[in-house]
């Protein structure tokens, strides 16, 4: 059994030929719990989409270790809340990896759904229509679905938005439980205090990785300052990035390219 869960090779992801993640190299260890932090537009969500495969890379690859199943909780869900479904219907979608298109839901499956709801503090919410849930309750419902997916790789994109403090505590506990079960977890978070307290590893992004490794090291003031100087806007006439125009090596170093990309981080 390999130790690596995810490998990024020269990964560039983006939109309309503008990179949002630029030449990312590195690996995610199996069973690691990593926070992904960075300013708005620094490529956090884009990286999540790239890993789960809903966004195709512009260059390079993301390689999942064979047999690794991913569960993904997006920041902007495309969930249609007006759809006539109950909480149990929504959470049951998480049975897809197990039951697929045609497999029948068994007694155990239904119990598993109830247990997942119980685990996020929504026991007894099975029959509630989803359009009657509050924002935080909906978020917990989606957590229950992730729980049910029973995935080896869990990607959570800003899961604590619109969630009250007590619920954040509950959800963190759940994440730590997953961590204890040797699942690989990546979480996009904004609250650095939360990261320092709960996440062993951190990836600090500003289109390129600014720092990547142990949380205490990554979140040092000089790194945060560098990340803050990152230039968010696209530049229409940014030069094309040539294949041999960059170096890339292992992660946790080589974040700043030593040449000037029009679209890369720049000194203010």
């Amino acid at each position, binding site marked *: 059994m390999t130790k690596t869960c995810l490998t990024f090779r020269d990964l560039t992801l983006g939109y309309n030929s503008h990179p949002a993640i630029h030449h990312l190299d590195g690996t995610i260890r199996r069973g690691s719990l990593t926070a992904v932090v960075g300013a708005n537009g620094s490529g956090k969500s884009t990286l999540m989409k790239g890993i789960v495969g809903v966004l195709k890379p512009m260059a390079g690859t993301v390689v999942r270790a064979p047999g690794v199943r991913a569960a993904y909780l997006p920041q902007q869900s495309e969930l249609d809340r007006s759809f006539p479904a109950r909480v149990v219907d929504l959470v049951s979608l998480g049975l897809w990896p197990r039951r697929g298109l045609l497999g029948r839901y068994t007694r155990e499956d239904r119990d598993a759904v109830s247990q997942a709801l119980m685990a996020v503090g929504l026991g007894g919410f099975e029959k509630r229509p989803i359009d009657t849930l509050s924002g935080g309750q909906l978020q917990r419902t989606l957590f229950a679905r992730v729980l049910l*997916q029973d995935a080896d790789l869990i990607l959570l994109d800003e899961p604590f938005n619109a969630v009250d403090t007590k619920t954040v505590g509950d959800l963190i506990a759940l994440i730590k439980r997953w961590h204890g079960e040797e699942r690989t977890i990546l979480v996009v978070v904004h609250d650095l205090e939360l990261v320092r307290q709960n996440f062993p590893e951190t990836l600090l992004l500003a289109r390129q990785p600014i720092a990547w490794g142990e949380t205490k090291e990554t979140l040092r003031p000089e790194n945060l300052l560098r990340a803050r100087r990152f230039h968010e806007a696209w530049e229409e006439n940014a030069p094309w990035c040539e294949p041999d125009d960059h170096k890339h090596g292992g992660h946790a170093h080589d974040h700043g390219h030593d040449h000037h990309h029009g679209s890369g981080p720049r000194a203010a």
Partner: protein
Amino acid sequence: MMETLYGLLIAPFADFAFMQRALAGSLMLSLGACPVGVFLMLRRMSLSGDAMAHAILPGAAAGFLFYGLEILPMTIGGLIAGIIVALGAGAVSRFTIQREDASMAAFYLISLAIGVLMVSIRGSSVDLMHVLFGTVLALNNEALTLIGGIVLVTLVSLAIFWRALVAECLDPLFLRSVSRLGSPVHFIFLGLVVLNLVGGFQALGTLLSVGLMMLPAAAARFWTMRVEPMCVLAVLIGFASCVAGLLLSYHVSLPSGPAIILSAGVVYFASILFGTRGILRARIVHHRHRTA
């Protein structure tokens, strides 16, 4: 009393073969089209159904142009035109930034113009009326077999792809993250829409066949919070509208197609008012509330 009722409700069907065929045809159509309509509505594509109905016209017209008023060529023509428009509009919306409503509008308008052009090249206005409004009272064996086949294909496809279809409506991004079925299911569904519209146009005409698809679905939405009962209810409303419409058309000698759709329209308005999620109920319940 019983005899009057018999005369009003049963006799038209018992005595006339053409009424039996009309009943069989329209009931079968409801069975397939109403659940498809429910999903169209839930995917907020209610007007796409209408657009597709118009899009079918040039295909049907081409069949009519080459073979005259024959069901099979017109149906196949309609099917081809519908699939081209559905795939074209679907592909444009999936692979470009344009949303499906705009691409669908563009495709169906082009298609409709071609259709009207073709019908006017040859047909008299009587023929045009037939293509546009259909004649449920003149369904022959060929047409009934065709409708039966379409219903069978529809129900089997719905049964197989049910879970994916619900997931694609409820949370498309989630479906994409666990399965590659998202796009195929979307196109299969559009295919079913076309199939059922084509099945309906011999009976109800290209313009009204979408009515039997959408009105029962829209009415059923006011009664239930879940998809499965909604589909069943839509089918039942479709059945009731067909029976009522055919009887109305028999007794008052109205054109059958509009009579069926208007019956469904009556159920729709009644549902708006009296449905468990309708206007009156919402007003009454709002005055009282529980403690938690």
